[in-house]
């Protein structure tokens, strides 16, 4: 009896620690899984529709830019998904490695291309890829002390091959273009 109470207390204590438990959830499209993971791990909420719409409009242009041509190449982009977390706390008390392993376990079927963590600046960037037939799903996750962003785009193999040459710049190229308004 005492033992089970002790175990219950231990479980409650673990639950009380922010981000201390591995996040378990149903396997979905990857994008939704990552957004949920971030929400559960950091106890934050992602932004609503207006921003998504704005980002979505912008991202169509992005794909054209990435593919190095005019907007007629927009079709290469396919669907674009953006989730933005603004003005929330992502300071994690050095739990980067735990978050990274949670990401890897949530994104089964995706290949991690690049993972960068700068604990001093409280910044993390992850890029995952998934073969989607004629196109590739590319997911970019950027986390900073007060904001985060998840972007998923579909890229043609030719566009992806071009970006592969500088994987360290790929995340920035996709995220900045996907979340910056043309008029800004």
């Amino acid at each position, binding site marked *: 009896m005492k033992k089970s109470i002790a175990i219950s207390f231990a479980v409650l204590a673990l639950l009380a620690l922010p981000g201390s438990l591995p996040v378990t959830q149903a396997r979905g499209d990857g994008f939704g899984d990552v957004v949920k993971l971030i929400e559960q791990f950091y106890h934050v909420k992602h932004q609503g529709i207006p921003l998504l719409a704005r980002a979505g409009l912008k991202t169509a242009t992005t794909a054209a830019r990435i593919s190095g041509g005019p907007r007629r190449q927009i079709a290469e982009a396919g669907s674009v998904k953006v989730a933005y977390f603004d003005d929330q706390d992502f300071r994690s008390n*050095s739990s*980067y*490695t735990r978050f990274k392993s949670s990401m890897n376990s949530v994104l089964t079927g995706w*290949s*991690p*291309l*690049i*993972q*960068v*963590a*700068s*604990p*001093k600046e409280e910044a993390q960037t992850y890029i995952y*890829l998934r*073969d989607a037939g004629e196109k*590739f799903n590319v997911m970019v996750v950027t986390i900073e002390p007060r904001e985060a962003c998840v972007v998923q785009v579909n890229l043609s*193999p*030719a566009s*992806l*091959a*071009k970006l*592969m*040459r*500088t*994987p*360290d710049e790929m995340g920035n190229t996709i995220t900045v273009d996907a979340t910056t308004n043309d008029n800004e």
Partner: protein
Amino acid sequence: MKLLSRTLLKIASAKLAALAVLLVLGATATAMAQNPRIQTSQLEGLAAKASETVDVNIDESLMALTIKFLGKDDDERKVKELVSGLKGIYVKSFEFESEGQYTDADLESIRSQLRNPAWSRIITAKSKKDGSIEVYLMHTGAQISGLAVLATELKEITVINIVGPVDLEKLTQLEGEFGIPELGLEGSKPKRKN
């Protein structure tokens, strides 16, 4: 008589089974010994102390994709030629705020793999910032099947692993591409073997 023949049969079966196990183990060990992919997961513990960690994984399918779709202009054609036949590029680096954040023991998991006779150290060079660069090649028969670089500085560790036919010249030309950092290897004079 029957008992004796049964006993002999049992002994023979046991010996055959043991031989089969040894053969399987031997084949597995050989396969592992000839694997040009360096395992870096044991360095993960350093991530907690690092001010920046970078992990680049370009596996065989992504390499194939890059090779297939690059080549629209001269620059791309040159890169395509360089990476042609490569089966993977993997880079892991740790930067630290201060010195003394890692020891030789931390690097042992990498060095122990590179001590395998399949690997030959072709370069040991001093780096610009009080560190060293070790370059290793793995040969499979007459062909190079992999390359590994262990670059250490007082506040930085970088492990580069290229799987496939690659040599030092290709490595220097690939610096700055596919997540491979600038190593400044051009002036290095190759030394032969350990």
